[in-house]
């Protein structure tokens, strides 16, 4: 059973000819983790933003559908879409240092949504906040809830953001490179924490990352993107056994090996880049500029 179904999604800069997302289709099953992989600028974050309705004003969706539990978000009114996303989806952002409001205490930043969007009473929301902070192994929750973000460490803040995402029991969470901004020593713990929380709550997770190593540990299926186009969309196991697409194969080969850290890195060969660029161009053939 799929929870999120993206069909033939194309987006572009307002007024521009070239598309940023090219006919993207992908599915996230209920309670499963789907990875979105690609180099910088491949459009992986943009897909997450499109799902959550937070694309920049300069980007417009020109065709396709984003179905959440069978309802196409793009057909809804702006207010209805906002409420539906707020009630059923959540975001784990990339940079914990900038994703918490510096002038508000942690408490209301977690509970506001529960009270104002889900209609809980304040006591229930506060109890929930303490409980969910406990789940991400923050023990002195009462103190943390009274703190301002600048009083907490980066790792702590990322835990809070994870807890906040799970607080409303959403059906889908978009994790936008949630470990990229963190210290390498903390990355692994945070990754493990997200995986644990996902398994415990049975939340579908769209995991945006450029790290294939992370995908192999966390995801069930993945989509490889290049130039806003999905070049490979498959389950994790066959992918790591042997990717079909030459670009995906080269990308996998370019991942540094922990077993042999001294081996020189293999960049994606120019010929493969040229080939995948050709494909991107070819995909634009049937595309009529609106």
């Amino acid at each position, binding site marked *: 059973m799929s929870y999120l179904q993206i069909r033939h999604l194309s987006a572009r800069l307002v007024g521009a000819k070239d598309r940023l997302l090219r006919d993207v289709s992908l599915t996230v099953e209920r309670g499963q983790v789907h990875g979105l992989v690609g180099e910088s600028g491949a459009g992986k974050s943009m897909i997450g933003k499109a799902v959550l309705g937070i694309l920049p004003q300069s980007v417009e969706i020109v065709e396709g559908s984003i179905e959440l539990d069978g309802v196409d978000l793009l057909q809804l009114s702006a207010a209805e879409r906002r409420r539906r996303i*707020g009630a059923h989806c959540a975001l784990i952002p*990339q940079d914990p240092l900038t994703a918490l409001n510096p002038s508000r205490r942690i408490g209301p930043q977690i509970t506001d949504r529960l009270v104002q969007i889900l209609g809980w009473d304040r006591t229930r929301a506060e109890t929930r906040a303490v409980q969910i902070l406990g789940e991400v192994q923050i023990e002195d929750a009462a103190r943390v809830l009274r703190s301002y973000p600048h009083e907490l460490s980066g790792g702590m803040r990322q835990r809070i953001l994870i807890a906040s995402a799970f607080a409303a029991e959403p059906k889908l969470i978009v994790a936008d490179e949630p470990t990229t901004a963190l210290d390498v020593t903390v990355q692994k713990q945070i990754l493990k924490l997200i995986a644990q929380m996902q398994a415990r709550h049975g939340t579908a997770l769209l995991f945006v990352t450029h790290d294939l190593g992370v995908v192999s540990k966390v995801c069930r299926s993945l989509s490889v993107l290049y130039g806003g186009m999905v070049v490979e969309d498959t389950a994790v196991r066959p992918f790591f056994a042997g990717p079909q697409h030459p670009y995906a194969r080269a990308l996998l080969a370019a991942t540094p090996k922990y077993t042999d850290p001294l081996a020189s890195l293999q960049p994606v060969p120019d010929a493969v880049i040229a080939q995948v660029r050709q494909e991107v161009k070819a995909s634009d053939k049937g595309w009529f500029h609106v």
Partner: protein
Amino acid sequence: MPPHGYSPSGAVLNEWARGDLAVTGQMQLFGRFLVRLMTTAITLLGVAVIVFVVIRVVPGNPIAMMLPPGATEADIATLTALYGLDKSIFQQFVIWAGGVLQGDFGMSITTRQPVLALVMGRLPATLELSVMALVMAVFLGGAAALGGTLRRGTRTEGAIDVGAGMALSVPDFLWGLVLILIFGVLWPVFHISGRVTPSLDLPFSSNFYLFESLLRFRFDLWADIVSHMFLPALALAIPLAAIIAQLLKQSLKETMHLDYVTLARTKGYSEIHVITREALPNAILPTLTLVGVQFTFLIGGTVIIERLFSYEGLGNMAIDAVINRDLPLIQGIVILFAVIFTGVNLLVDLSYALLNPRLRHG
């Protein structure tokens, strides 16, 4: 606190360092406050010296204004001695400053009443006018900034920008004339002269008419007072509202791109909720500083606006005092204005520390 992977000693060290920082932060805040008080005192002394010297050096003699034409040399000498104007400027200053420290600002030459009583009698009128203008400016400017942010990138925002540009480029006394023309002459809905209708019987025990009429539930008087204040306050408010609108909208729009605002968007809040609850508390700080500075200019602006609307405040009195060369009165008014200016600046600094948690904790 082992959860985020500090070693136990690291955690202890961290806790210790944080506590220590908090203490230094508070001491720094207190020290800053002391330094501010001292600089304020020096500022006031400087203002006093400058005013004292300048009004005695520029041409124009208060004694000459008081005596009828044809007064004898002896009369002039007697009066000059009576007001102590025969002594050197330095001696005069020492005498005056000594009095001031004991709360005696001298006697007004023209009215022969104590300066302090005169000035304090007029101060409430000017304070009420300035605060009303400030409130109007904050509401008008804030509404324009929020509206412009809500409709950013549309014609509405463009219209707000143009309006603010116009409001800012026309000085307050010209707005006063425009308002008198529109709401006093063409469509006479507001009073354009005085502070209150003279025929009314005022039961007030203080000079804070607006405030006291509310306290006494005399809404008939309150309406009359507001009707008198509305146009001068609006004239003072329009340029400040434009400044608030421009700066606050700019900061709001910058804040709207930040990560925590984007995150708040995914939580299902309406756009106006996101702007007011998430962006505004962070975007308001630069505006607050500027409003503090601009408010002092606004108080300065009351001098001309009060004259224009014949409003019986300090500003109007200041102009009369200058015309009559009433030296002690000029000194008193200027010192009072200086106290208000520095006081407002101090308040702004304090509220800045209150609003920004990072500053509060050092």
